[in-house]
């Protein structure tokens, strides 16, 4: 009995998402339409993909504040490569590698300098933003090849292309976090770092890997963002880190580490996406939208904490 109500509570984010979906379908005739739903998917894909990486970081007991800045850097450099002879594929590769590079830098700084991730990534946030503006001179990169728009806006048999990218990323993240050695160590690190060290786990190596993956996924997201805007924006991704962290936390991730899941994060990101979309459709003041999302974050975590308290007794 106890177990069953525990399961129910654990599924609360999922039921909230369904309830929100049903409510919006009834409240607005424009909600449950192919056009609107695919626009929700397109809008949330960027945050969603970044949140997958952030889930790993948060499960490991860390935090990455630099993901928005990495997105701007990778988007700018990727698109610059694209217009300077790299072609669409070359540009995308450059963008992803830029993200990977920043992630590796974050991990290396955290493990070698032994500085808390919050501080390191606050620092790299500033560095990445500054360097992006210097390289681009503050100007957006324009004149991208027309085919590049397919990534962000294209569809295959009615299914938005970004949804496929998102699902592929989510599948890989799911397998990595839930059944690979890296994932296992990520949970162990976040649950009890000392015990992980005493178990002979090469903690530094796996910490670097987690931040590298998070950075790389920001690189992937940067290409989708650039494709949707058809420009490389050096100022892209402002405050995305907060939305990304919020998605993980709404999905059950714990900032003290050891908790969080890929499915939870996807649900968290879609809840935020639906709240934004629904508010637009229902004509709710955009200023109020921000406040609603803020309140939802607190509510979600409060419910999750109440559940944990009840079942740890």
């Amino acid at each position, binding site marked *: 009995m106890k177990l069953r109500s525990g399961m129910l509570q654990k599924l609360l984010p999922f039921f909230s998402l369904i309830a929100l979906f049903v409510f919006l379908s009834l409240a607005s005739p424009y909600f449950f339409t192919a056009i609107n739903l695919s626009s929700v998917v397109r809008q949330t894909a960027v945050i969603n993909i970044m949140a997958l990486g952030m889930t790993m970081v948060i499960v490991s007991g860390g935090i990455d504040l630099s993901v928005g800045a990495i997105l701007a850097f990778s988007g700018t450099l990727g698109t610059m490569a694209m217009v300077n002879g790299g072609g669409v594929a070359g540009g995308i590769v450059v963008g992803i590698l830029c993200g990977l590079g920043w992630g590796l830098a974050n991990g290396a700084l955290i493990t070698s300098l032994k500085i808390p991730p919050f501080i390191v990534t606050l620092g790299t946030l500033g560095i990445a933003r500054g360097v992006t503006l210097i390289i681009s001179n503050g100007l957006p990169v324009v004149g991208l090849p027309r085919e590049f728009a397919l990534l962000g806006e294209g569809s295959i048999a009615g299914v938005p292309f970004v949804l496929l990218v998102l699902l592929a990323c989510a599948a890989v993240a799911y397998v990595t976090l839930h059944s690979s050695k890296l994932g296992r160590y990520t949970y162990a690190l976040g*649950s*009890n770092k000392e015990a992980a060290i005493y178990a002979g786990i090469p903690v530094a190596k796996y910490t670097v890997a987690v931040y590298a993956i998070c950075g790389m996924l920001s690189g992937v997201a940067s290409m989708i963002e650039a494709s949707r805007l058809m420009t490389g924006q050096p100022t892209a991704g402002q405050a995305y880190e907060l939305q990304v962290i919020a998605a993980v936390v709404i999905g059950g991730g714990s900032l003290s580490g050891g908790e969080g899941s890929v499915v939870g994060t996807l649900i968290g990101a879609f809840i935020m996406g639906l709240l934004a979309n629904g508010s637009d459709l229902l004509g709710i003041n955009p200023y109020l939208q921000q406040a609603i999302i803020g309140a939802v974050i607190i509510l979600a975590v409060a419910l999750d904490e109440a559940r944990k308290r009840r079942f740890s007794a």
Partner: protein
Amino acid sequence: MLLDLQGIEKYFTGVAALRRGDFQVEAGEVHSLVGENGAGKSTLVKIVAGMLERDGGVMLWRGSEVNFQRPADAHANGISMVHQESLLAPRLTVAENIFLGRELETGPLLDQRRMERECAALIEEHNFPLRAGWRVEALSPAQKQLVEICRALHSASSLLIFDEPTSSLSEAESAEVFRIVRSLRGRGMGIIYITHRLDELRHVADRITILRDGETVHYSPFSEVTTEQIVHHMVGREVSTIYEREPLPPGEELLRVDLEEARLTLHAGEIVGVAGLMGAGRTELCQTIFGITPATEGAIYVRGRQVEIRSPQDAVNAGIALITEDRQKTGLALPLPLRVNITLANVDAVCRAGLVNGSREEKVAEDSQQRLQIRAASIEQLAGRLSGGNQQKIVIAKWLFRDARVLLFDEPTRGIDVGAKAEVFALMDELARSGKALLMVSSELPELLQVADRILVMRDGRLVAELPRQTTQQEIMHYAAVGK
């Protein structure tokens, strides 16, 4: 008479920590309180200092019965305790630490100047090598101890309690503490002095009270007892051995440690005990062998071959495992299921094509659960929900699955109830019989005598003696407390 305790009792969740604590302190004397770990010394002085309330007995202060409910009540009567240095706030100054929680104020603001002045006066009065404005984090362990003494002196003037004041100090620094203790006695203060180091009593003690298993078993002027008698009273009569281990002929040499502070050899089939007082360096020895604090010189050999151990990974790869004294902090990931904890040190062995194979892992976990008789609802139960004995078995299971051949047990029975202790011992015996080499650090001498094939004694960070299994508690305590 300042303090008179008669038949003090104290229970923690039904278990007696003190059954009959009798103890007196006169003004102008140093009364030393000794006993083994867990004899009830700390409990007794915490009752005096108002940190615990007694469950029975009489406490007289200057002839009238008192009952302190909080440290402030004790302070009000001029009683204070010198804590271990760890209770200081490192980023604050000496003066700020001394006045912590009882700051002087003028209106809404702190009166920094007056606090510094009073602190400086106190330091000068006792001629301590300190300055009011120094930051505590920059001080040596001995100076930190002095700050604690200042704190205590500032709030009390009649009775000071020292709880192992020299445990982290060098010999020269200890001598300084003795000088201060004697000078406070000269001012007519009563002093309770707890120590594990019997050899330092002669520098300070006027009288001695010995506790054993929560009871006062001896008190007399210090000059009337010999060290041997003290040890005898601390340990009591010969404890009959309930668990008798049949030693095996030692097999192949599995581990040889050749460090300046300790030289030792472990053979297959052996359980070697390590005795010593708190702070004697037993845990540190294990951590060095396991690579937590790698040795700077010397060498470690596994099966005759020298191995470089710079990290726990190196140790694990060399087949060495450490079962730490603090399971919750360093042994287990408490929020994760026991399945995950058991395979954590050897995930590769349950992976197929780079991914964890669920059914293989479940089988490993279930086999371990059965073999070690870990009492849990299922392998999915969270490690944090299990009892101490079962948690200990998970830690052991983890290393067995890793196929470690040298197992270092640091206080393996800490926090485990009596029934589970016997199970852990039986398991250790079985491990030895299966050809593993075990090192067992324990503060429980009877347990060491029951389980170990031979016993190494450490004192002040060094190995000082190797005793055969037929040795006695008295002999071990002698080496641990006195050295040669």
